[in-house]
């Protein structure tokens, strides 16, 4: 099991980097926001992986159970999930306004229009 000790973190880094790649490589603004969300979701997985204890049960107190997984990261991530939806909504609203103003959601076309002004 020792070889698998860091496996979760490595997959999380991979997922984070796919999200990061979408954000910097794709020129479509909606896809960029999807990439940002992928990045955020992998941060959630990182925190919950850290909170997990081998053989620990969910942190709901019960007679006869002594080992629980760590509830503090769970609380932080609950907050983070809700905040991520709020920021996503704001980002998507900005995308809709950009589409109204420029008629496109492709980043390079927006730059071209800005330069031709």
């Amino acid at each position, binding site marked *: 099991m*020792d070889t*698998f*000790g*860091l*496996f979760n*973190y*490595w*997959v999380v880094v*991979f997922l*984070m*980097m*796919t*999200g*990061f*790649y979408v954000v*910097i*490589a*794709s*020129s*479509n603004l*909606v*896809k960029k*926001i999807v*990439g940002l*969300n*992928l990045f955020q*979701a992998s941060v*959630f997985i990182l925190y*919950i992986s*850290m*909170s997990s*204890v081998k053989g*620990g049960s*969910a*942190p709901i*107190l*019960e007679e006869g159970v002594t*080992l*629980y997984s*760590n509830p*503090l*990261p*769970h609380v932080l991530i*609950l*907050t983070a*999930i*809700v*905040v*991520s*939806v*709020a920021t*996503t909504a*704001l980002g*998507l*609203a900005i*995308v*809709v*306004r950009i589409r109204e103003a420029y008629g496109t959601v*492709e980043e*390079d076309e927006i730059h071209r229009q800005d330069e031709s002004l």
Partner: protein
Amino acid sequence: MTELLNVVLLGFLALTALAAIRLRDLFAVVMMFSIFSLLSASLFVVMGAVDVAFTEAAVGAGVSTVLMLETLSLTVRRERPPAHRKLLPLLVVTVTGAALIYGTFDMPKFGDPNAPIHHHVVTRYIEASPQEIGIPNVVTEVLASYRGFDTLGELAVIFTAGVGVMALLGTRSRRRKENRR
């Protein structure tokens, strides 16, 4: 069994993320993101974080997806094919990823009960909360009582985001009506 489930779910997460990169149809990309959220919710259940799991399933996989689909209906559905090769982003991502992987070598092993994260305030939360608050769900106790100000701050963020969205989109329909007149 739990470890196997863990590895399988992480593998599926990696596949959906790769599919989201490759697809050009934005509807499919959004669906991939929704599947990604649902898979991560299942992973949270496996790791014992049930409260996080149902929030992620409802809010991450549900509300986020609806918001993205709404945006697609107001904008365009297909992404334009890229104009040039993406070598520089790939390089940046690889270097960053390698640095982060290097950082994980100092981290405690997955599921290790002696990790520092499990020996600070958390033991007190679990031991003292039955006397101090008296409901069985520790996550609820920490969220609403011990760290209640965090939750208040979260409300401030949601309120600000709501005001922002209203300021950006709220006046639109009124303006359109005036234009028609």
